[in-house]
């Protein structure tokens, strides 16, 4: 049970003078229940890649299968929830309920079951179910994004793919979104995040895939990612790398300030410096 991407190639404007290769022999797999971070700069093919997962784009060569089904199959769209960048822009309903129910009702859910599903999705997205009767446009930007997330969660996807979910969010909203994603992951849903803000996601990513100019430049665990020197790393990691370079024997596979604090304290202690100094 997994997403398999094999030798995927895709061109924009294929067959014209403006032809541009967007994906170049991309291969990887995502197991069910994994938290995967797809990193890469602007124009590295991240957004093009995720549009292949549910068949919005068709590969020019290679293939994507989800649990053994080819990605062109429309029934996959309830299995893979795809949340685009700035998803608050896609809201359209007169009420939050109407908007969230769009997905499941497209897949044939009605009546009480639909109501139940919308409530579940609201709670899962970390929202208060009471807001379901108000207009989504009266909410704040961060809440609108969560409503959009609930709109995808209401389809009960087994995999959820998010494109730059934290861009443009203030720190509070970012933290609540991250904790929502963690909660989703621990409830058994595979979470695939596409982002260049790697600092936010590295700490809990099971697997990191780095795209460069449309091809896979790195695949591995987040610890391995931090140790491979060629790639971009979070600020706190580059601090640790710098300390190591200057002769302190600290570990460099560190994501968070707390971890870094503990590690530095440990090294200082071992050098005989007492805590209160």
């Amino acid at each position, binding site marked *: 049970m997994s997403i398999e991407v094999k030798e995927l190639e895709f061109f*924009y*404007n294929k*067959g*014209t*003078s*403006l032809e541009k290769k967007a994906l170049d022999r991309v291969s990887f797999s995502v197991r069910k229940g994994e938290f995967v971070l797809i990193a890469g700069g602007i124009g590295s093919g991240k957004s093009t890649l995720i*549009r292949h997962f*549910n068949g*919005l784009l068709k590969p020019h060569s290679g293939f994507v299968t989800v649990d053994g089904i080819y990605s062109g199959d429309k029934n996959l*769209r*309830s299995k*893979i*929830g*795809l*949340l*685009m*960048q700035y*998803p608050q*822009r*896609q*809201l*359209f309903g007169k009420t939050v309920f109407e908007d969230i129910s*769009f*997905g499941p009702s*497209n*897949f044939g859910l009605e009546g009480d079951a639909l109501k139940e599903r919308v409530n579940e999705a609201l709670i899962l997205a970390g929202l208060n179910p009471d807001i379901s009767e108000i207009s989504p*446009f009266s909410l704040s930007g961060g809440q609108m994004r969560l409503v959009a997330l609930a*709109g*995808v969660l209401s*389809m009960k996807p087994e995999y959820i793919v998010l494109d730059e979910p934290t861009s443009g969010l203030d720190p509070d909203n970012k933290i609540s979104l991250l904790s929502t994603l963690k909660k989703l992951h621990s409830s058994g849903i595979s979470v695939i995040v596409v982002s260049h803000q790697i600092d936010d996601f590295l700490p809990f990513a099971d697997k990191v895939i780095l795209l460069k100019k449309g091809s896979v430049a790195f695949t591995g665990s987040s610890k391995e990612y931090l140790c491979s020197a060629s790639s971009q790393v979070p600020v706190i990691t580059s601090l640790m790398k710098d300390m190591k370079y200057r002769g302190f024997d600290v570990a460099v596979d560190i994501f968070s300030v707390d971890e870094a604090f503990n590690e530095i304290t440990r090294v200082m202690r071992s050098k005989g410096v007492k805590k209160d100094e």
Partner: protein
Amino acid sequence: MNDLFLSFIPGKSLLHRLDPRTKIIGLMVISICILNVSSLETMALVGLVFSTLVFICRLPVIHFIKSVRPMIPFFSLIFLMQFFFTEGTPILDLNLVSGTYEGLLLGGIVTLKFVFLILFAALITATTSPSGLTTGIEKLLRPLPLRYFGISSHDIAMMMSLSLYFVPMLYDNFKDLKDAQLSRGLDARKEPVKAIMSLVVPLVRMSLRSVDEVALAMESRCYTGQGRSSMHVLNFKNMDYGLFVLFILLVSCLVF
């Protein structure tokens, strides 16, 4: 942009280098010619002129095919109307109506007229940058006494360039939205009204917001609409003068 409909393709060909004004007037002249064509032989001549121009500007033929493609339903309708509702020798007999040879000929010519009008327009937009095109139109409109109606040729040009700027943006927004709603299981056949609402409401919201933002951005940079210089300084070259002589000859041939 993924789509090539009526969009600019940069290049250095003869057509790219011509003054936008020459190209706009040329388009008008050729449109008058096309509308006056009444036989297939003359239509073939128009086709020959078009192919020569495409060859000169070295653009991919697919670009022009793509610019005609969205109009195919419209063309087919025109053709069928002519085919079935022109009187003459019947060649195809259906029970209710019958197609005639004269209808076939007339329908072919009328349809080709529209096709070539669009093709030439596509040729101009493909070889002229949008800003060059608006500058050209502004200069052409300048002699008109528009300011007595409370509007300057510059205002018109600015409105045009802003609309040109919004078309690809709207299109990109629309594509993203369609992808987002398709991912949520949008099916236009099952519930067309809801499908249209789910695309139109966000699109209008986004457009109004970006219009506001552009207006604010222009105002914050002190836009007044008067006394602005243009990025493009237009100069007629020998080639342009030569073409103007040709245009005048062509039009006078048609008139007399």
